């Protein structure tokens, strides 16, 4: 397979399908062969759906030959995170607790993607129940980062991050409660969107939390994210990617600049340059006073811990050792929270989430780092509760229900991707995608490919 097929995204691959220089069957076969060849290194794919994908690809080609193209996703091979159900396929959430379970129905978002003509070729590996970590004691080993297989991809949509970055699918759909789309997208050099709360149907997704969490796209560009989002929601965000950000008001969260939140100096530098690129494109920086990210982070963490424990309580009491080490610890910690802790977190989420949305009275988007370092080694990522050290810069936008896009904006001294995060008021998903698309029109970070040519 020529490299150019491996790295096709939705927009450029769709153009080749449309002009007849590529068929969906050839594209799908090429990616299936590449997965067979490379995934023993990257461990991205929990279930390879070869027969399902080839049938869908052949059907897409027949329809196109008959003059019936369904839209931009018609015949495009993509992957989905394992917790997203596909009728007839295994769904284990990468946990021994669910090993052997087969989905009887497809998630509503999968139904919509398939109606749009997408070819689902793989279910991707992930952290256990979207909450564990890169444990080596799970049914499927942790995904490895295509930019350096000794580094983690982040999670929990870890396999999706590895697969898109390694050229094993055109794009993927992950899920994100505390940052599970955005962290692996940041660590793997992808564009990834946590959509506005409630925008993408949650039905048919194995839940982590009942208050938080969205499914969303992980892709090679903001434009490709928009194609996936539109197919899953019926929105027309692609039509709004004009790239004009003249006069756009940007608020820059100062946490990584003033040391409120630690960040690698390379991240600070890359973020500063990214903001500069946006201002050169016509945006203007406006000073803002958002709520404290530590407060918003506290709400999200406590709600996730409590709801995750409640969801898994019977199994944790009956047989805790069925969970992997990191997942077991994280799920169990919620047992020690009081009802009052949970209720206060819900009250504060409503208060501080509303306060965060009010910031958007004064600005169109907020910009901060997608992650505060490049991807760490597996050793550094294996602590069960390393996550209590400082706040995630992603959780505040989850708690506020805001759309948040991460987009690559540089590299650290080890050659690992760095990213910025662009967020807007709940419901303004097209705005963050448009800003991301404009940034990617003026820069080439999203076009960089990991050094895996020798594999």
């Amino acid at each position, binding site marked *: 397979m020529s490299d150019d097929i491996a790295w096709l995204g939705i927009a450029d691959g769709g153009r080749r399908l449309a002009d007849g220089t590529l068929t969906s069957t050839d594209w799908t076969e090429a990616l299936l062969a590449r997965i067979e060849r490379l995934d023993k290194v990257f461990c991205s794919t929990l279930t390879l759906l070869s027969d399902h994908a080839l049938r869908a690809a052949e059907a897409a080609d027949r329809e196109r030959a008959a003059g019936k193209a369904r839209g931009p996703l018609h015949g495009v091979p993509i992957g989905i995170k394992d917790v997203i159900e596909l009728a007839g396929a295994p769904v284990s959430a990468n946990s021994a607790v669910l090993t052997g379970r087969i989905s009887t129905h497809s998630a509503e978002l999968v139904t919509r993607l398939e109606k749009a003509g997408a070819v689902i070729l793989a279910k991707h590996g992930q952290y256990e129940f979207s909450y564990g970590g890169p444990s080596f004691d799970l049914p499927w080993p942790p995904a490895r980062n295509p930019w350096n297989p000794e580094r983690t991809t982040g999670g929990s949509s870890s396999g999706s991050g590895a697969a898109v970055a390694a050229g094993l699918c055109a794009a993927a759909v992950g899920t994100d409660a505390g940052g599970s789309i955005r962290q692996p997208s940041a660590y793997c050099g992808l564009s990834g969107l946590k959509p506005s709360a409630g925008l993408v149907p949650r039905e048919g997704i194995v839940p982590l939390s009942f208050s938080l969490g969205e499914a969303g796209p992980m892709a090679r560009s903001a434009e490709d994210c928009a194609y996936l989002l539109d197919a899953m929601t019926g929105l027309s965000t692609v039509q709004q990617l004009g790239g004009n950000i003249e006069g756009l008001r940007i608020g820059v969260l100062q946490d990584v600049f003033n040391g409120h939140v630690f960040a690698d100096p390379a991240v600070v530098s890359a973020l500063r340059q990214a903001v500069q690129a946006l201002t050169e494109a016509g945006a203007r920086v406006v000073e803002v006073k958002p709520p404290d990210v530590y407060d918003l982070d506290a709400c999200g963490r406590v709600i996730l811990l409590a709801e995750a424990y409640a969801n898994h309580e019977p199994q944790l009491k009956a047989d805790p050792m069925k969970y992997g080490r990191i997942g077991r610890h994280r799920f169990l910690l919620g047992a020690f929270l009081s009802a009052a802790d949970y209720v206060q977190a819900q009250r504060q989420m409503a208060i501080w989430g509303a306060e965060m949305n009010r910031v958007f009275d004064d600005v169109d988007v907020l910009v901060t780092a997608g992650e505060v370092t490049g991807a760490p080694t597996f050793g550094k990522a294996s602590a069960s509760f390393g996550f209590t050290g400082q706040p995630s810069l992603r959780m505040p936008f*989850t708690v506020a229900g805001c759309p948040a896009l991460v987009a690559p904006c540089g590299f650290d001294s080890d050659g690992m991707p760095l990213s910025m995060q662009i967020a807007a008021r709940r419901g303004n998903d097209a705005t963050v995608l448009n800003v991301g698309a404009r940034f990617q029109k003026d820069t080439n970070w999203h076009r960089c490919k990991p050094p895996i040519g020798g594999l």
Partner: protein
Amino acid sequence: MTHKPASAAGSSMPSADEMDALRRRAKALGLSLAEDDLLILAQGWSGLQPFLVRLRRGLEVGQRPPVSATSQ
């Protein structure tokens, strides 16, 4: 409001009293946990405390919050 630095949070060794307290709570909750797991959970519980303190700030009795931004 202060936070432990990332390298320290959740990594300090819990005291014997803290371990005993957590062991009793786990038993009362019906959880049967290995000592290794209890130790990690005690560290995690310690690291979580600053977050819980934040959640109790500024709420008045009877204060009704607005509708959550994440509700569908």
